[in-house]
């Protein structure tokens, strides 16, 4: 673990892998360090934002040094099931990258146990890591200018669901009717760090 400077009001904790990130994120949420006003996990880092009126970076840095990560508590909250129509435009391309056919991609994707590792890119966009660890899919060489909302996609080691129409470079394998970010729901984001997720195959068309 390295603690890196990140401006007057933040620290960036750099970790070895996703598991460590989730273990630290869970511990940080449970500890509720005084004066920490935001915690932003990412693929290899956790950003802590402080309120300089109530604490300082030195104090928070020392507290981070004494943190006991919770590797056993990576998955939190109720299981979210996402029904997917697996008819994405890039399904065949993903199959050829993974060295199998499209049916097998669907079987693996719907069969894996996913956990939201972190959010980013857009409100409610979760980066989901699969327990099988067998995902490694390059992004599109040229991003789409508009990906439809509800698109279920893969990139790198992650799967994700586009909360709304946006440009995007992920490989599209399907779509869901489930609204993963709804301002009229509390909380609006269905996919929050630590949330366990299953994709359910509801057919191709």
């Amino acid at each position, binding site marked *: 673990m390295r603690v*890196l*400077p*990140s*401006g*007057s*009001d*933040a620290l*960036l904790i*750099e970790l070895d892998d996703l598991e460590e990130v989730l273990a630290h*994120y869970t511990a940080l949420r449970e500890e509720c360090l005084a004066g920490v*006003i*935001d*915690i*932003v*996990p*990412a*693929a*290899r*880092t*956790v*950003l802590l*934002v402080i309120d*300089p009126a109530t604490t300082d970076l030195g104090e928070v840095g020392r507290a981070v040094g004494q943190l006991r990560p919770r590797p056993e508590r990576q998955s939190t909250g109720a299981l979210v099931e996402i029904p997917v129509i697996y008819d994405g435009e890039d399904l065949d391309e993903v199959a050829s990258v993974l060295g199998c056919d499209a049916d097998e991609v669907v079987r693996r994707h719907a069969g894996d146990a996913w956990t939201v590792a*972190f*959010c*980013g*890119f*857009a*409100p*409610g*966009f*979760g980066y989901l890591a699969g327990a099988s660890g067998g995902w490694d899919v390059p992004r599109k060489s040229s991003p789409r200018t508009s990906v439809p909302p509800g698109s279920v996609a893969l990139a790198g080691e992650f799967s994700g669901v586009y909360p*709304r129409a946006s440009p995007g470079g992920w490989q599209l394998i399907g779509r869901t009717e489930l609204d993963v970010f709804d*301002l009229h729901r509390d*909380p*609006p*984001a269905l996919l*929050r*760090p630590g949330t366990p997720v299953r994709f359910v195959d509801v057919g191709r068309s």
Partner: protein
Amino acid sequence: MTAPAACLTVVETGPLTTVQDAGRLGQGAMGIGRSGACDRGAYRLANRMVGNYDGAAVLEVTFGGLVLRADTDVLLVTTGARSAGVPHNAPLTLAAGEHLVLGPPVTGARTYVAVRGGIDVPAVLGSRSTDLLAGLGPDVLSAGDRLPIGHSAGRMPGVDVAVVPEPEAGEVVVRVQPGPRRDWFTEDAWASLHSQRYTVTSQSNRVGLRLDGVPLERANTNELSSEGMVRGALQIPLSGTPLLFLADHPVTGGYPVVGYVIDEDVDRCGQLRTGQTLRFTTRG
């Protein structure tokens, strides 16, 4: 008979007027950034001058051009970038039917208009700020909009005019400190960041300032996993020239942050116009 609800009507908006407050705090883990006023100091001053509670919503006017009509008597103030011909940093009463007309600012880019009682549009995720990058919060203002004014305010400060520095014209110098990825850049790059004069380009907005200058050289060509950042970050994309993040910056970014403008100085960056020059100095 009850009194009509206090209200302002937007007659003209200028290039861009949005509703802003202190922003959405503590939701970064859901991919939701803070947003809020670009010049937080001017925002806070505006609320104080009309006796508003901290966190009340105001208007952020980019390059003037806003025309408001008071539908009832209202007390308001303008702070930040000064518009010629309008009392500035000084509360004024607009009687029902009167107009507030903001011309182009003398210096700076963003003027704040606070109304006693606050702009009372519905909050989204705990804030009335428009986040232009995330597409959250109230819509950008349009001519014809009616803005409700809240009822809750505190004591008036008893100050006729606040004496605060005006946004700077010409070259602006701000302090930087090393960022998390300082070591991804060469020593020469770090020196170059401090010695050159950057120009603010027209691709700048509430997300950030795109700066033009001599590209910085990377010490490695690794690909960075996206990581969280806050305002003031000097992110260096492949072009080698910095993007200085302001209020609507993305929650995470995948290009290395070489340095941070210290938070105290970021408000002044939020007042820079296209073509102004910006220099970075070591925190001292």
